[in-house]
């Protein structure tokens, strides 16, 4: 019993993969499914670069075993854009230069999407607390907060 067969739903599509018993969801996404948007920063749930949604809950995929994805619904950064059309959050991050090296960006976008889904009009403070588990080591957070506000405003008026 060295591997486990997992059947799950990723970004709305059913997916199956085989993984090790001790393999994380992050490793399975990246190495077995080719979904390399989620990044490994710390591997211990501190940096948020591996953020995905598991049954709608925002989680660090480095703190989830791949086997736990059985029967679950997973949403990753790869599902954010609609075809060639960027999500308003992605567009605002580009427009307002809310990224530099980009390692933290997929996780921040997934986390920000989860925030705006439940709170379409957050305050700056609410954004900062919600994103406290997403560390950025180059941009600083002001541009990120501004980009989230910009996207939120555009989504409200859409």
């Amino acid at each position: 019993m060295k591997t486990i067969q997992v059947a799950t739903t990723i970004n709305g599509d059913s997916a199956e993969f085989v993984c090790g018993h001790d393999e994380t969801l992050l490793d399975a996404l990246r190495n077995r499914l080719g979904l390399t948007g989620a990044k490994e920063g710390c591997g211990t749930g501190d940096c948020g670069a591996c953020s995905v949604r598991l049954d709608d809950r925002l989680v660090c995929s480095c703190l989830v075993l791949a086997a736990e994805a059985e029967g679950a619904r997973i949403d990753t950064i790869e599902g954010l854009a609609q075809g060639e059309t960027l999500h308003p959050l992605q567009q605002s991050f580009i427009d307002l230069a809310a990224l530099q090296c980009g390692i933290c960006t997929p996780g921040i976008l997934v986390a920000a999407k989860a925030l705006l889904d439940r709170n379409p009009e957050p305050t700056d403070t609410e954004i900062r607390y919600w994103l406290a588990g997403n560390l950025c080591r180059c941009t600083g957070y002001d541009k990120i907060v501004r980009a989230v506000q910009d996207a939120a405003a555009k989504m409200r008026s859409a």
Partner: protein
Amino acid sequence: MRYVRPETAEEAADLLGREEGVSRILAGGTDVLVQLKSGLVEPDLIVDIKRIAGMRDITPEDGGFRIGAAVSGAMLGEHAGVKALWPGVVEGFELIGSTQVQGRATMAGNLCNGSPAGDAVPSLVAAAAVARIQGPGGTRDCPVAEIPVGPGRTALGKGEIITSILLPARPARSGDAYLRFIPRTEMDIAVASAAVSLTLGADGRVAAARVALGAVAPTVRLVDAAAECLLGTGLEEDALAALAAACSAACRPIDDKRGTIAFRSQVAGVLARRAAAIAHQRAGRTS
């Protein structure tokens, strides 16, 4: 390592009870996965309890609420009933980690991790919460206060798992609150903390109180001497000063990079009096 996902608590306890190697229970995984990653523990068996019926349920029971062992911080924080009855328990649990960690972390996990600084535990102790435990031989109930026995150690025997935590009913005019000190505003481990739960009598004076301190002893500590300082009072200045002094006197903390013995002892008292004031205000609001 073997990952298993039993469907019943009996099966989970049986698997854990019969495992000869190292085993770990997986609910939210926010501590276990970190231990795996760091190599701190190399389990032979991981038992995922999330598919067991009731583990992710919040169920009204005798005027209180039974919280399944796999209920996350996010789930608890969205439950209006629990927030109204035990706001201090919810606020303590919600202080743990980031939004991502809250999406997975559980109160039972925080309790079983055995850290004296676990933010979910002091409020549970102040609330006189009771853990239901499934073992290989059956179930038993144990006050949450008696679960931790030292840093990283619990009173759970081999094969035993906490399946739920009961937050009991409480009389009208009751309130609770939790405060911790950290040197930043978010995402940190308590240097000292205090939880206070109290009930006011018809005369507006404190009729019952429980005070618990975190991060100032090998385990979270219930301080009866501190609670007694509040009984019969209207939380006047002398009562609050006595409460703070009793809390500081009960501290047996360590000196480390996050705080000295003197600092932790003093701050625990300050936090207790502030938490008492918040609990008092909340108790007045429910009358």
